[in-house]
């Protein structure tokens, strides 16, 4: 679509949208938010870019092929489920790893990996759908 307002706004917005989607994603750990809604906003950013500059440009900005995103997402979903099976607990049981760095204490967990998987799947799926419908 050729519109100066849209072009300028999109250039400004895409970074904000991606950042916001990451914010939603990490906030979802303890509060409303999470991989699904974050993924939706992230996919929204690339959809907006596709509307403004065409799908070809948007694919370039995304760098990774959306189907690869889905595949990596699915893989991290399965892996997050399989990890507890190595310590003889049922599939999908939450496992946590606390790392103390002093100032920044980090919580790593299988639910986080699962959520990353959801995020990637949602972004990949929606972008695939929008791009292929747009390119028809």
């Amino acid at each position, binding site marked *: 679509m050729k519109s100066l307002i849209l072009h300028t706004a999109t250039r400004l917005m895409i970074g904000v949208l991606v950042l916001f989607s990451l914010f939603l994603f990490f906030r979802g750990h303890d509060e409303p938010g999470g991989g699904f809604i974050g993924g939706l906003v992230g996919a929204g950013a690339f959809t907006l870019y596709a509307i403004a500059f065409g799908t070809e440009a948007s694919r370039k900005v995304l760098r990774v092929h959306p189907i690869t995103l889905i595949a990596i997402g699915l893989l991290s979903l399965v892996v997050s489920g399989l990890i507890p099976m190595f310590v003889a607990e*049922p599939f999908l049981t939450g496992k946590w790893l606390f790392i103390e760095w002093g100032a920044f204490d980090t919580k790593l967990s299988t639910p986080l990996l699962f959520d990353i998987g959801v995020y990637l799947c949602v972004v990949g799926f929606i972008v695939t759908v929008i791009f292929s419908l747009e390119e028809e």
Partner: protein
Amino acid sequence: MNGMLVLPVAIPLITATLALLFRKSSVLQRWFGILGMAALLGSVMILFRDVYTDGIQVLQLGTWAAPFGITLVADMLTMLMLGISAIMGVVIGIYSLYDIDKERERFGYYPLLHILIMGVNGSFLTGDIFNLYVWFEVMLIASFILLALGNSKNQLQGALKYVFINLFSSLIFLFGVAMLYGMTGTLNMADLAVRLPMVENTGLVTTTAMLFMVSFGIKAAVFPLFFWLPASYHTPPVAISAIFGGLLTKVGVYALIRVFTLLFTQDSTHNEYLHTILLWVGGFTMVIGVLGAASHMEFRKILSFHIVSQIGYMIMGLAFNTAMGIMGAIFYVLHNILAKSNLFLISGIAQRLLGTFELKKMGGLYKHYPFLAVLFLISAFALAGFPPLSGFWAKLSLVKAGLSIEQYVITGVAILVGLLTLFSMTKIWLSAFWGTVPEETPEHFGKIPLFGAGKLYILMIPVMIIAGLIIAVGLYAQPLLELCMTAAEQLLDPSVYIEAVLGPQ
């Protein structure tokens, strides 16, 4: 607690993911396909041993206790179905090597096939009714795309009918789930089995039972709801037709058996009409299906109508509601998946040789390819119920079950339908295998050997594997009959299932 229980779902998912990651490489995808299916078969065999020796196996996902989390349950019925689905996976995996063209491979045939198998396995394993809905959808979306992949005019027409009727049936299913949740406040199937008899409003329970009946009935293609099946199953490539015709409709039958033995038991006062309705539906499905088959002259359409007809037998066995009847139904499901998919696979080879599925334009297969004709006869006779093949034992146990509870009319119908089945199989035999070679037959007909140059043996190996299984099951029916009997007894006594899931009451 058995951690292995998740493998029949996890292995196809991992395979699908890897196939998606390496979607550019056709060789890798094929290897993943074969290896993934083989791993699946291995894991199912290990699980089978556990269920056989220790009884029903349960896994609470995420360590959330039974009525709150998602439970995976494997009883004997589940294991038999998982076993047949894994065998079908291996066989179709091999057949696809030749049958699926490069274009379909590029658009993700292999990942979709594995996701389809994952959905089927998940439906067999789950012990939660909402989770069953989710697995059905996983299976459906994969089947939608597999059916439409290729975009030919015919496939699009078939896919349109298939997609809309199945979307509608899923929504009815979801509505049934909502009713169950509203009445009992739980979605775990074992917990539902405990709480449903306590619901006072029997009218609501019957309504919900009918919602499930219609929804699963559409998926299983029973009498008034079958029309979409013969309209769509003959359009995609043969490998896809075979797995749809063999496996997918049987998932609907499995769901019917599970729901009407565990949740809505036929003998309770809640569902007095259920038994009669199932019996009538079974009878009509048998008759209408076989008549439809008799009126068509296209290889795969005849087979599609036969799927409908055979579903009738399974519903009839369920409606008898005795251990013998349900055993017959389960045995029939297993036998039918083998025989039916083999016939589809053979139709594919015949089409490769003769260039068409129209019986009128076929002929001379017996003269030039006698071995193929023998394989066809084995499957066709098994379907019609000739001794000593697998179909004989399936029909015998159903007839015995019918006679022992004095359901003479429907038993008579079942035997008559068996004869009519033989009639349309004869029709295929007469025109495609006997008959003269038509003029417009492709040049290679009669010159290409089944084994050797042309690599047709890739198509022949799966057919021979299944034919071997049909003969083996026919000659040594006793072990499988006993396993089916165990499954039927477990189904008829839900307290074992409930205790395994919820713990001692």
